């Protein structure tokens, strides 16, 4: 059997009414179960179930795509969230229930495709079936009389020629009174259908196992910094199950400069970024340095990895000195952007070298402006009038507890505020190149100007920028693309190549004339079947007429 028994093209199964069915044994039950699983109805049910099961994942944040959203959801719905978590609502697409639906679907699919492939391979070698006795009941049936002087065998041979030209597979049949040709085409339809379904299985396997062979990692680089592609150089690193970190190709990547351009002509979109380009230099191990660029939508492919530009911002260079003028801290600190005009927030931790541990919470405004309430904000994302404000805290930075802490946050609860908006001393305020004393004679802090020689008032290069890169390695992407192309190609052929049978019959009449009959049968969707029969009849008539004309001078009698 090629198709599931409930496929529309299969012969209807006689219903078992009135027949006492024998009790199914164990094997019989398995067989019954298998037939149920591979039936069209089950496949359809599983497909619809899959569609419904995919919905919750769009209503509730998912750990895979929106981990912060999940954390937020737990905060907002403390009662509901744990309940949802037990039914894997935050990991829908890797949950047991979602997986079991698509796995059953694919088992059903494989169980359907294998017997069909076997049957199709046989059909590819088989001759078209015998011409039906009565064509009159078939689609597009028509009859015509052959031109005088054409005998039935010649007429059918001509029909065979026409059909062969139309790339039909043909077989001739004859009986004492009639000759006929049976033709079939469109085997590609079933081939396409099988390729489509097999490619889906391939896609599932590659996606399922393939992701285990890759990794994703993140790294932030300030202009001028270099990264070496080794495990320790990543800020965060997520290897796949089967990934071996010795496979990392230790190339180096330097962020030379980071260019941003902002819209200034169109006032409706004033300040909107129109281009981000990270100018980089890549040096393969033992190779020559090469300049490259990473843009949004345009990753850099190097050393078996793809480097994506995910984010960017300012990294003010901050230097802290003790009262004697010894440098205890100096670094370009990436500040995280808080809004579209790049008001940015950054943390500096100075654990050693000063009398106390000092923490600085900094706000950076690339183009500082003041609101009516006196608070600062940034009115443009580029460096027009950069200002850095620093809240100063002293006390325990919490670095000695052995608990890992983020470089982007500072727990000020246990620290003493020395200079904040609510303390006696207001936050320190610096422009590039300026230095301020820290409160309590702790020392001084400097906001370094990266281009001290620039003209007065030109701050455009005064603060370095940083770029955050995502670095991915996925050796199976090519396979995914290949299977996707096969899916699309298979779909196109299986839906648009018509599969049909055509028959031409020539019957010798008592009066010596030859009656020609034409008919067709669609196998699957075939809107053009009737016109195909008509076209066949017309071509056939034309060919017969032409050969009759060629033949007639030879037979002057």
């Amino acid at each position, binding site marked *: 059997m090629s198709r599931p028994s*409930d*496929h*529309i*093209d*299969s012969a*209807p199964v006689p219903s078992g009414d009135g027949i006492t069915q024998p009790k199914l044994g164990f094997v019989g039950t398995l067989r019954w179960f298998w037939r149920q699983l591979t039936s*069209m*109805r089950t*496949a*359809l049910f599983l*497909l*619809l179930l*899959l*569609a419904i099961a*995919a*919905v919750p*994942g*769009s209503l509730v*944040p*998912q750990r*895979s*795509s*929106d981990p912060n*959203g999940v954390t937020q959801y737990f905060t907002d719905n403390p009662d509901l969230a744990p309940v949802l978590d037990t039914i894997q609502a935050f990991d*829908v*697409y890797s949950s047991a229930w979602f997986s079991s639906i698509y796995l059953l679907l694919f088992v059903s699919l494989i169980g359907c495709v294998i017997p069909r492939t076997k049957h199709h391979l046989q059909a590819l070698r088989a001759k078209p079936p015998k011409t039906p006795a009565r064509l009159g009941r078939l689609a597009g049936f028509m009859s015509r009389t052959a031109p005088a002087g054409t005998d039935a065998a010649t007429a059918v041979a001509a029909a065979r020629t026409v059909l062969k030209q139309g790339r039909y597979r043909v077989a001739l049949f004859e009986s004492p009174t009639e000759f006929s040709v049976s033709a079939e085409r469109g085997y590609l339809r079933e081939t396409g259908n099988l390729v489509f379904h097999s490619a889906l299985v391939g896609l599932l396997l590659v*996606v399922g196992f393939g992701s285990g062979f890759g990794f*994703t990692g993140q790294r932030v680089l300030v202009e001028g910094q270099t990264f070496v592609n080794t495990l320790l150089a990543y800020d965060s690193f997520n290897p796949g199950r089967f990934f071996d970190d010795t496979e990392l190709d230790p190339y180096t990547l330097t962020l030379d400069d980071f260019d941003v351009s902002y*819209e200034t002509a*169109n006032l*409706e*979109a004033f300040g*909107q*970024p*129109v*281009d981000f380009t990270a100018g980089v230099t890549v040096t393969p191990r033992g190779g020559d340095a090469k300049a490259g660029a990473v*843009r*949004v*939508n*345009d*990753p850099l492919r190097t050393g078996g990895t*793809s480097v*994506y530009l*995910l984010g960017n911002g300012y990294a003010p260079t901050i230097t802290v000195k003790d009262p004697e003028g010894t440098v205890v801290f100096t670094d370009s600190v990436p500040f995280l952007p808080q809004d579209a005009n790049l008001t940015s927030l950054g943390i500096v931790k100075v654990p050693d070298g000063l009398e106390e541990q000092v923490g600085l919470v900094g706000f950076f405004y690339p183009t500082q402006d003041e609101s009516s309430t006196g608070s600062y904000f940034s009115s443009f994302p580029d460096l027009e009038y950069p200002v850095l404000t620093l809240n100063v805290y002293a006390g325990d930075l919490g670095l000695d507890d052995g608990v890992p802490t983020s470089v982007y946050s500072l727990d000020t609860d246990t620290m003493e505020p020395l200079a904040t908006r609510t303390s006696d001393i207001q936050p320190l305020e610096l422009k590039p190149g300026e230095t301020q004393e820290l409160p309590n004679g702790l020392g001084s802090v400097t906001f370094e100007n990266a281009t001290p020689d620039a003209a007065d008032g030109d701050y455009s290069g005064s603060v370095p920028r940083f770029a955050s890169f*995502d670095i*991915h390695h996925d050796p199976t*992407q090519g396979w*995914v*693309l290949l299977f*996707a192309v096969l*899916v*699309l190609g298979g*779909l*196109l052929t299986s*839906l648009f190549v018509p599969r049909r049978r055509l028959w031409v019959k020539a019957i010798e009449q008592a009066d010596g004339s030859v009656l020609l009959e034409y008919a067709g049968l669609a196998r699957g*969707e075939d*809107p053009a079947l*009737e*016109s195909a029969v*008509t076209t066949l009849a017309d071509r056939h008539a034309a060919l017969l007429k032409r050969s009759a004309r060629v033949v007639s001078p030879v037979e002057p009698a």
Partner: protein
Amino acid sequence: MNLNELSILSLYSAMAVYAVAFIAFSIDLAKRSSAVDAADTESAKTEAGEAAAVGSAGGTSTLTRISARMANDAATPYGRSASLRVGVSLTVLAWALQLVATVLRGIAADRVPWANMYEFAMTGTLLIVTVFLFLLTRIDLRFLGTFVTGLVLILLGIAQQYYVEVAPLPPALQSVWLVIHVFVASLATGFFALGFALSFVQLLQFRREDRVGTDKPGRLKFLKTLPAAVTLENLAYRTNIIGFILWTFTLMAGSIWAERAWGRYWGWDTKEVWTFIIWVIYAGYIHARATRGWRGSRSAWLAIIGFAAVMFNFGVVNVFFKGLHAYSGL
């Protein structure tokens, strides 16, 4: 007046013309109903009834064009009323105005005119009408005029809520895949819309055909002038599979773009989820058509649910769901 203002003016004009076309198509439906009444009275006199009309249609089986077959398998043959011709002409005019509006918007922005919700709506509805007018050249689907102009009017009306000034593309959208992925998705929506309408009429027609012979004639008399339910089903299927193939391509093009932009080809982002759901529903529809007991009304319902999901994906997921596609929406 700058190009964008001209675009807005042209779009408003198009909406006004669509509104008049909608009225013309509605009058045509009313006329169809009265034509059916007249024909019924006539046939009651001659006692020939519906059988005669069907019988005369059967004699032209050698006609091969679908359009010919479609006109013939209506229970009550119906020609072209003046209002129908007016409706089609006005739709063509409104389409041309909308095309001008869309092209001007693109020129004003110096990029493809489908980079935010307002522009999606403008281009998407333009493509719905384009698909409709294209199909009209091959098949007589003019009876869908009320649906098409009505839907387009509503969508364009809603789109005014999301009007934004012309702005350059943010870096995230600067990609050739914006041109391909979004355009093909909108084109697929055009085919799904027509497939939805045909499936809907198919259901109505099926109910009417089911009642023939009973003494409950049903209220929508114009259905008698439309093709038989089986013909409508075949047309709906052909329209929907074109949409399905375009949608498959949309999904794949989106994956390729996602790989370039976000570093992964698939990540179950909300919009990806809904694109997947729609794909599965239409895959189910195609399966249903091939499943015994599901061909006919049941599969038609799947096509209707599928289009509802398409509209949900466009209207609700873009606006109210959190996800990576959100910045492109408004």
